[in-house]
């Protein structure tokens, strides 16, 4: 997977964290561990919001919220503003810049990747494209009113040019790549 390797190198170079799993189950295992490790619980400032996404198909959402109290699947403005972690699935990755690309027209998608401190971004490994022109060829913006390209966490160098992470948007971008499921033997 030369595209994945390039993507990982570039994404890490801009302070994203990149993980890769051979299956959805293993990815879910990591996510639940991650939520636990970050101390997600059901109160303002420590909860997590998960925007609707194809990855969740086949999982019992109710069961998940029982395992992780504080994890919410109904994303509201208020909840996202009080969430520590926002989770969403991205549509594409760009290998040459480590960028995540998403049709974020649905407002929940924007809320979970904008307001919380940590953005956990899911990405199918097979959706990594070489570069920006490649993804722009696939997109018709008339069909996707709000396209979001995300390359690492929020950053600024406005005070004495010192690079500082996390000014308005997420402080951490954690990318979870999921390989395509192998056909059952």
């Amino acid at each position, binding site marked *: 997977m030369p595209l994945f390797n390039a993507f990982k190198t570039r994404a890490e170079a*801009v302070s994203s964290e990149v993980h890769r799993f051979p299956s959805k189950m293993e990815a879910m295992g990591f996510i639940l561990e991650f939520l636990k490790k970050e101390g997600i619980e059901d109160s303002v400032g420590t909860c997590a919001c998960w925007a609707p996404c194809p990855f969740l198909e086949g999982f019992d959402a109710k069961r998940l919220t029982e395992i992780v109290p504080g994890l919410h699947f109904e994303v509201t*403005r208020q909840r996202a503003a009080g969430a520590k972690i926002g989770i969403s699935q991205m549509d594409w990755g760009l290998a040459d810049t480590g960028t995540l690309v998403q049709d974020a027209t649905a407002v929940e998608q924007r809320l979970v990747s904008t307001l919380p401190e940590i953005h956990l971004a899911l990405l199918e490994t097979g959706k990594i494209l070489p570069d*920006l022109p490649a993804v722009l060829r696939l997109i018709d913006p008339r069909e996707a009113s709000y396209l979001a390209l*995300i390359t690492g*966490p*929020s950053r600024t160098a406005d*005070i*004495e040019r010192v690079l500082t992470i996390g000014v308005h948007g997420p402080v951490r971008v954690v990318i979870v790549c999921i390989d395509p499921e192998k056909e059952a033997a």
Partner: protein
Amino acid sequence: MTRPFKQDIHNALENANLAGALTRFSEAYVVSRAKAYEGIDFEALRARVAEIKGGAAGRLQELAAEFTEKVEAKGARVFRTDSPEKVRDYILNLARERGVRSIVKSKSMASEEIHLNAALQKAGIEVRETDLGEWIIQLSGQRPSHMVMPAIHLKKEEVAEIFSQELRERLSSDIPRLVQVARTEMRQKFLEADLGISGANIAVAETGTLVLVTNEGNGRMVTTLPKIHVAIVGLEKLIARFEEVAPILQALPRSATAQLLTSYVTMITGPVPNTDGSLKELHIILLDSRRTAMARDPKFKQGLQCIRCASCLNVCPVFRLVGGHVFGHTYTGGIGVILTAWFNGLKKSEEIQGLCIQCGRCREVCPARIDIPGLIVEIRRNLAREEGQSLGQKAAYSIVNNRRVFHGLLRAAAIAQKPFVKDGFIRHLPLFLSDMTGFRSLPAIAAVPFRDRFREIRQPVTGERVAFFAGCLIDFAYPEIGEAVVTVLNKAGLEVVFPDRQTCCGAPAHYSGAFEVAAHNAADNIDALLQEEVRAVVSACPTCTAFLKYEFVNSLEETGLNRKARELSSRTVDFSSLVQKLVEGGRLRPAEIRETIPVTYHDSCHLKRTLGIFQEPRSLLAKAGYAVTEMFEADMCCGMGGSYSLKNPAISAHILERKLNNIRQTGTPLVAMDCPACVLQIRGGFDKEGGTVRVKHTAELLAERLR
């Protein structure tokens, strides 16, 4: 130059924080920019960007109409106007009708151009800049000093002080802590705001798409959280097609902040859902404000290709000394001069245009391939046309225009050796007539000019002849450089002729905007130089060479002399390039090996950037037994810039000081260069401080060591 402007320059030069911050940045920028462009064909990329933006600038109205149609079909409202006042009224009315009390803004230079914040605040509406740098600037009541880094002139202690006052709480100057304060403080404002204002980096006509390029994430919040979004878009942001977004996004972050891509790129096409399920109200203001007029000007149209990366500021030797509070208006630096002249009126650019030293560094890095120095000279021409020349200028040029009188004056000056002409007058004469010796010594005018000494030189008769164009400095101040040129060429078996009727190349007049005078000089020189049957016309002054080779053709474009100018151009060659060919052809060899002499080499602006020559002199020096040690920023201007050093002596002196220091740092006792004007500046600088570094023209060093 007015007294207040002079004072501003003085204050900026004395502000160690400002110069320190800008200089450290400009040094780091060159390195990080190069790294960001690794693996990318910059010339091809910028050709593409220029093509896209230039094409769009040629059909702004058409693209504006297409954009409007497309995005209105999606449900947005577009307001196109030429008037800043109407933009303010539109937004004020909207705010009134919707009961807007607070506004959050992400960065928009167009809104700064029309002084929107003041108008909104006057109407009792709270406006909050949310870009960290812009917020700092807003709180401190200043204006941005840099197009990309608005608060680069402020130290963290000053920022801490500004925040402390705003929050009525003592804050430390720890940067991450200050950023955290901004995050917390701003978060509430984002969530409460009734209306969000943004700019746009690109507007795509074909799809009605706005592209926003940001790093902090404020742009996403401004366009997501409030229920109304107003985007203020300068007409020049329009491009025709969606696929053309990619090249611009490849160039902009690399050139602006040396990033491969900014943290966030947002592409908005029409209204999007709000957090309460309603559809956002999207208003897009297309601001003309003289852009269409600019697009109609065949020369200045290319100024609209600018993508606001500010790389022209970052590489400018003057900007890094004085910053954007002095060097600019809403838009700063080199491109700022050009945009100010159009958006705010020619008069407003009068002072700032004089800060450009014409070194050409910005032209080298501009990702939209705008000839920034060339357009600034055009502004000078327009200013000269509109306001006429001063009496001093007129008197000076009437002399430069008449070779006999001009050369007579130079000879008289040599005898007098005292300044005998007044300030306003000598400013426009070749500067060795000046007595302004503040920061450097000036050479005495040669008792016997080169044109007279030349007759005494005994040359071999080989029948293979080249003509030598001396230029004023070699002719009247440094005849020994001319003699060295003849010596080297004679050794290669070339016979040198000196056409007596040659005169000033016209550069001083050209750079002051006196194009007619420059054209007159060009015509005289063409006439003199084409008289002789010669293989080539050689000059040891890169500025003269550039004029003979390129500028004569331009300035005589619409005259009958055009063909002759081209003929002269094809014959003209700079000294080092000619000698390099002679060495390659085996006609010149190193003299018998003696000890190697250490030297460092200074690249002159016109040689490196106009003529593209920088390998040749280094290779020749090495062949002739000199060991070349590279200095830091070898191709940075020395601060001379012809009459620039007389008009802006304080800036010139600061630039020179850096150059001298970079030369000293190499530890070599000798510095070589190909330009007699750089010799004047750098030798004068070392002489003034009593230094021991010898300053030589490459020709002088080669004359001793080639055979």
